[in-house]
């Protein structure tokens, strides 16, 4: 390839990548500018800048409550996922490796059945009767467990395969550890970092979940996304400040996860 040709190619590739970046950035940038604009309507650029929308947002008790609700539901769902999935994976990989094939089919279900479909059944099954959960955070915690399941399962499986579960267990037992000791004191610490990354990433997408939250619980236990949707008729600057605050929060989480991940591969 001649030099001229390769320079044209490199200019082309650089511009495509920058264009991609710009396309992805534009909605965020627009929202960011809107959230710090004092007023912006029917013109291309805003007329002035202010931080009053942020102070209004972070002083709003309804917002803080919704934020707390979201945190609580997501953390509880992830704790539940870890408590349910870790023993499952351990048992599947150590005792019944053939179950892995079945599990790989089962974890496709949350993906093939969209939340809006599950909601139809959930509303009817748990709307009344002995298992009445609709309108409470409990149903969200259970549903978010299913949402996080495919991702957590795959992420932890990859980690288990990387650490050679069987050798590690055998070595620990040879040195006199019981199965429980080996699982808790040897295998678990080795999974810690991979687990952290999986948890942070799951948290960031659970935090943005809207369908279950809106249909099953709504304003009875308002989460951040439901609050955002209910604020649709208030000032656009206010909702923009909310969107940006939300995104920055998720950004920090994903950034920490990428950082941990990079650290691990080195």
């Amino acid at each position, binding site marked *: 390839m001649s030099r001229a040709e390769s320079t044209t190619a490199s200019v082309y590739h650089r511009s495509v990548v920058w264009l991609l970046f710009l396309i992805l950035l534009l909605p965020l940038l627009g929202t960011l500018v809107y959230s710090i604009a004092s007023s912006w309507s029917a013109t291309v650029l805003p007329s002035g800048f202010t931080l009053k929308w942020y102070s209004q947002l972070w002083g709003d008790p309804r917002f803080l409550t919704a934020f707390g609700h979201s945190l609580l539901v997501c953390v509880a769902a992830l704790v539940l996922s870890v408590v349910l999935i870790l023993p499952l994976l351990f048992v599947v990989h150590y005792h019944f490796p053939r179950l892995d094939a079945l599990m790989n089919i089962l974890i496709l279900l949350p993906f093939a059945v969209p939340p809006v479909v599950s909601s*139809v059944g959930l509303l009817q099954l748990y709307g009344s009767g002995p298992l009445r959960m609709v309108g409470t955070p409990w149903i969200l915690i259970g549903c978010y467990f299913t949402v996080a399941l495919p991702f957590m399962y795959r992420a932890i499986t990859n980690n288990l395969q990387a650490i050679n579960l069987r050798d590690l267990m055998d070595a620990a037992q040879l040195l006199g550890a019981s199965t429980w000791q080996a699982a808790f004191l040897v295998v678990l610490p080795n999974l810690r970092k991979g687990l952290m990354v999986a948890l942070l990433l799951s948290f960031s997408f659970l935090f943005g979940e809207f369908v279950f939250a809106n249909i099953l619980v709504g304003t009875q236990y308002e989460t951040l996304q439901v609050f955002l949707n209910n604020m649709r008729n208030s000032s656009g600057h206010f909702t923009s400040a909310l969107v940006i605050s939300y995104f920055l929060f998720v950004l920090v989480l994903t950034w920490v996860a990428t950082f941990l991940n990079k650290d691990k591969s080195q």
Partner: protein
Amino acid sequence: MTRGKWLALLCLVPFAVFFIVFQIAPLVWVLIHSVQSEESGWGLDNFTRIFSSKFYLQAIQHSLEISFWSSLFGIVIALLGSYSLRRVDSRLRNFVNAFANMTSNFSGVPLAFAFIILLGFNGSITIMLKQAGIIQDFNLYSKTGLIILYTYFQIPLGVLLLYPAFDALREDWRESAALLGANSWQFWRHIGLPVLTPALLGTFVILLANALGAYATVYALTTGNFNVLPIRIAAMVSGDISLDPNMASALAVILVGLMTLVTLVHQWLLKRSYHVAR
């Protein structure tokens, strides 16, 4: 079986209980009630009503159209983008890759609001384009508007899935092809695209499924006034007017049927995909 194995099986029980309560039971409820109706009991009544109703057929058609076009545009942009990402210096690549990763979380309600600011009736881009005389008017709350919005959230996912696929395309093949006299077009036509095809199709079906099931974005944008399948289903179980859980179940079965088809195709493609020797 030894005592250890029984204990191990016991460890699976809590997981099974939660999975059944929150995943299997609702799905089974939907399946059973889709073949029941208030008036005529068991039977395929709901389905005949759906397939003879213009309103429901329109919802299905809108869902398919928006999913198809947004997946197509999304995958083309993702393909061009991730190919170029491979060929720029690593600093720019890592930065844009990480950014694409992060924007994949920017969907649903926040995304709809961001688009209203930019492309709504008084959105800054709408006004800019109007002033420049490029467009007369733009309605974000229409099918075209939704396709643009959906395409946006398909791009990061597309890049995420396609970027690793380029591993299969080895740099020396390109050089060998060039040495043997192939031009760039011939290389792509006979080597590049055939090698990437399974990955492309696989990504395409995932994008399709992603768009078919999407509810939050379109709900937030149009407050549930645009007729697509997920909106219709939700309206019949949580709306203010006509509640009909059996009908909602039948529509849900159609949606799940479409998604299952897509998932099966994807699994099949995964098995056949080109694996590069590492």
